[in-house]
């Protein structure tokens, strides 16, 4: 029998873990949800960002949170460069070729990491990695609370950027009607590269927020990427509030599923919620900004 205090703790823990999922899904909802690029490289780029953060912490002795702005810039540049130099060129706008291009990028990045860093698992040490806030019987992890907060702030910023800025409007215009956008003077290639860069920059933030509580290895991206795709579809393609709510819902479902069904069977809960939501709201929980 599960006690009430465990249930409460499971719920809170699910929300905090969901915050981390939301962070990873935020970038993907822009790339997959708005631009409709099936970005198979999303997990691999998260891994690149985590190794980048790890190197800044271990070699440059930066705090992971201090490395966050730098990693956002670095990952933006990598994302922009990848789209402009590789994915955009190979795909020529054809969806199937985009899919293959991102898959190719993922394979290259995964194996490059294996050569450079071996398959070993790495972690960082920070003075606050075991820090907790005591809330009654609950011990809330400080790094998880921080990543939860940043996920909310980042979602608001991205939503405001897409809804309120010319650049955001341009991205949405290109995604919906590239020919029309071109007629009004928008250059779709540049806008796609910019949006892809922003999506990947989100991974820079996610990586630095994950580092204090998680490990880094060449396979680490695979741990999150399928969940991120699920969250994007569940939350509504291209919706930033959807990504956050979807992330939290998946986090809580996983957590309570684990408590009631055990950690082996628990993940079934995610699939059940996913099917139920899509049955009743085929477009996801939220409608994207159009």
């Amino acid at each position, binding site marked *: 029998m599960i006690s009430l205090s*465990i249930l409460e703790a499971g719920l809170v823990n699910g929300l905090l873990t969901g915050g981390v999922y939301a962070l990873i899904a935020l970038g993907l909802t822009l790339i997959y949800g708005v631009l409709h690029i099936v970005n198979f490289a999303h997990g691999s780029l998260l891994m690149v960002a985590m190794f980048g953060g790890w190197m800044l912490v271990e070699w440059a002795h930066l705090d992971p949170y201090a490395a966050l702005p730098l990693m956002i810039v670095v990952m933006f540049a990598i994302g922009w460069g990848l789209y402009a130099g590789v994915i955009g060129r190979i795909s020529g706008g054809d969806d199937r070729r985009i899919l293959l291009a991102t898959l190719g990028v993922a394979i290259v990045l995964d194996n490059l990491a294996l050569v450079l860093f071996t398959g070993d698992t790495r972690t960082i040490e920070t003075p606050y990695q075991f820090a907790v806030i005591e809330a009654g019987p609950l011990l809330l992890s400080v790094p998880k609370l921080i990543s939860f907060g940043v996920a909310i702030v980042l979602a608001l910023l991205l939503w405001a950027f897409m809804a309120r800025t010319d650049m955001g409007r341009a991205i949405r215009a290109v995604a919906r009607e590239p020919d029309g956008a071109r007629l009004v003077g928008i250059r779709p290639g540049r806008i796609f590269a910019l949006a892809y860069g922003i999506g990947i920059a989100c991974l820079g933030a996610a990586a630095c927020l994950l580092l204090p509580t998680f490990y880094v290895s060449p396979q680490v991206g695979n741990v999150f990427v399928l969940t991120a795709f699920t969250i994007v579809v569940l939350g509504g393609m291209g919706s930033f509030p959807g990504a956050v709510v979807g992330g939290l819902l998946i986090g809580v479902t996983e957590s309570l599923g684990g408590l009631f069904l055990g950690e*082996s069977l628990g993940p079934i809960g995610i699939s059940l919620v996913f099917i139920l939501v899509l049955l009743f709201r085929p477009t996801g929980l939220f409608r994207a900004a159009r």
Partner: protein
Amino acid sequence: MTFRPTTRRSTLAAGAAAIAGLAMPTVLRAEPAAIKIGLIHPVTGPLAFSGNQCRIGGQMAITDVNAAGGIKTMGGAKLEALLGDSQLKPELAASLVDQFAEAGAAGFTGCYASSLGLAATQAAAKYGLPFSIDSGVADSLTTRGLANTFRLFPSATVCVNGAVDELAGLNKAAGGPVKTAVLVHENSEFGTTTAATLKEKLPAIGIKVLDVMPHATPTRDFTNVVLRIKEQKPDLVIISNYLNEYVLLIRTLKQQRVPSGIFSVFGGGFSLKFAKEQNDISEDVLDFNNWQNPKAPTTAAFRKRLDAAGVATTYEVFFGYYAVKLLADAFGRAGTADKAQVVPALGASTFYPDMLPYNPTKFVNGQNQGAQGVGLQVQHADVKVVWPDQFADAKAIFPRPKG
């Protein structure tokens, strides 16, 4: 044209050259063909780190054998590695055996994971080629009646029984402070069978199993598992899982301030690196696992060699190393690479892996009866052997100090 008179020196030089010239073809003819050994491991994919460690060990053994003059009874024949990456795909491991058999492999070592080993040893059995398992603990690897398959290292049952013996011994010596335990294990063959055996045997040594908690690989968050452990207040948490989940679970136990002792059986993340780099969570953690013999005179030099090459000291390197050495020893005693003579030579082998904490080697149905795991503990950021006494280089701290 300049005439150069014949001198004693030039005559000697010409004579020496002639002898050398005559001797040369003989030397070339005497160079025996290299003996090819297939090294099959998962060097990419989720098990890449451990697979690579096995491969590195195997390559080191080949270097050592060749540097020592090759297989002497075969005219100094050199060993040659055929390297295969099986990823985590049993069918690929089997296909690599076929490819290497075609390329003239005289034997195989591999494959780190039991699932890969099961497929590869079966494929090698088709050809009757000897297979020296370097890592892979499933009992079935040597209980299926494959005459070509040999394991110098311990099986899962041997290790789990050893772990229970260690726990019984430590607990008795400490006055029986551990009365309850919770088992946490990954939910594939390895973790499930280990936990099932522990659950069956622990009550007999006076330890009640309060709960058994399986988890998937990968698992992203262990907070729920730890909350349930915390509520049950066990004296000991016993873990059997792989590297990443091992580290995440122990970190979460620390974060949620669970005071229970930690004991693992085949703890995937238990290593020197874990002891040194994560000492805030690793200190006092007990593990029953494969390890080297700290008292063996050659172990320290081998570890230095690994350090110099930037290779982590893990048991997989030693296993990869000795799996090849076992084959090389059989080639040497058989005086041939012919499988018909090498397989019986392996069966009769008494080859002793001197850097491992084993009893004398004796093969029964392909399994070395002298192989065993040892009890380990992180003490002062180092891994110490604490069980059995015969190989121990430190005394176990048991139970775990509070706070």
